[in-house]
């Protein structure tokens, strides 16, 4: 029962002024840090703001990018819906690592978080391009890749080890570039970026348990 709930404090910061600015100011939008868009370890380190009580939820969109017109991404949702994602100078972009909008390509998949704008676009606070977070079993280990199976159907996925990027966490320990403790048959959580060209995944982080 060690995880029974404790009381927790709420941040004194307020998102309202940021989101209001976004709604009224066109392409100006709150930076990712205010909505929690920073990368994990940095985001854990400092409390972020509470949700703005006037805006019950940020807008979310997912799908494949079909076109890019300047700072607007056209996205085909997975259920036949369509989104127009407005990039701003404060949009955080993740594609295997924190990067810039230049890394976004037509054909990529994405998850986007932002704010609905009056013109029908979504002004993006954060974009996660091609991101996957798969519960897998390690089926094979090679120098430059892991062979993985995920899902109830044990679908095969090749996880590419990216030099100077791929890290591992063993039993919840701190991240390390040392992958030598991976074992065939282990359960693993693989956070990475899908490659549309060959359906493989570039591994950002592999977390293994027992």
């Amino acid at each position: 029962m060690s995880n029974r709930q404790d009381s927790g404090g709420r941040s004194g910061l307020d998102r309202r002024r940021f989101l209001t600015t976004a709604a009224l100011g066109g392409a100006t939008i709150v930076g990712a840090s205010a909505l929690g868009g920073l990368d994990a370890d940095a985001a854990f380190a400092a409390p972020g703001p509470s949700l703005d009580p006037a805006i019950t939820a940020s807008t979310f969109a997912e799908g494949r990018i079909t076109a890019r017109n300047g700072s607007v991404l056209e996205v085909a949702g997975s259920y036949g819906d369509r989104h127009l994602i407005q990039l701003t100078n404060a949009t955080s972009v993740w594609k295997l690592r924190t990067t810039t909008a230049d890394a976004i390509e037509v054909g990529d998949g994405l998850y986007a978080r932002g704010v609905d704008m009056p013109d029908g676009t979504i002004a993006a606070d954060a974009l996660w391009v091609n991101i996957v977070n798969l519960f897998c079993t390690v089926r094979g280990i090679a120098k430059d890749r892991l062979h993985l199976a995920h899902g109830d159907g044990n679908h095969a996925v090749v996880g590419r080890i990216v030099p100077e990027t791929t890290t591992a966490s063993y039993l919840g320990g701190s991240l390390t570039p040392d992958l030598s403790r991976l074992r065939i048959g282990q359960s693993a959580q693989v956070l990475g970026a899908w490659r549309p060209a060959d359906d493989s995944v570039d591994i950002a982080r592999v977390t293994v348990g027992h």
Partner: protein
Amino acid sequence: MACGSTSLWAGETTWFCCGSSWGPCGSAGTGACGTCQSSANQAAWPNTTQACFDITRPDLCGEGIPRRGCGSVMNVRHQCSGAQVCVTISDCGPRTQSFCGEATCCNGVCRTNRVIDLTPAAFSAIGSLSSGRLPVYIYE
């Protein structure tokens, strides 16, 4: 059913994809409840049924997580930021037993063990998908 404020549990949350989607997620299916969609504020709970519990086995990590079935509603709140999202249970998971003892911390306070899995829409409402895990409180 509205999201409540009665304490239920606390621990780590991770995220998963389901429903129609792109890439490796395209084969994920709609989950144990048949309704799961990545773009909706939904979650997976490790004790939706006995069959689910037999797979996730949170008890092996010392978690006596109560049963809550498909359609149950929970409020998930980030331990540090206070950001929260109301979710509907739509799948079985996470596989708690595979990562016993794993802890996620912020401000020096840690939550241990994976006790709920959120869809990308729900997870991104309270944190960054690139973090992979968050420490949360859960209400119903």
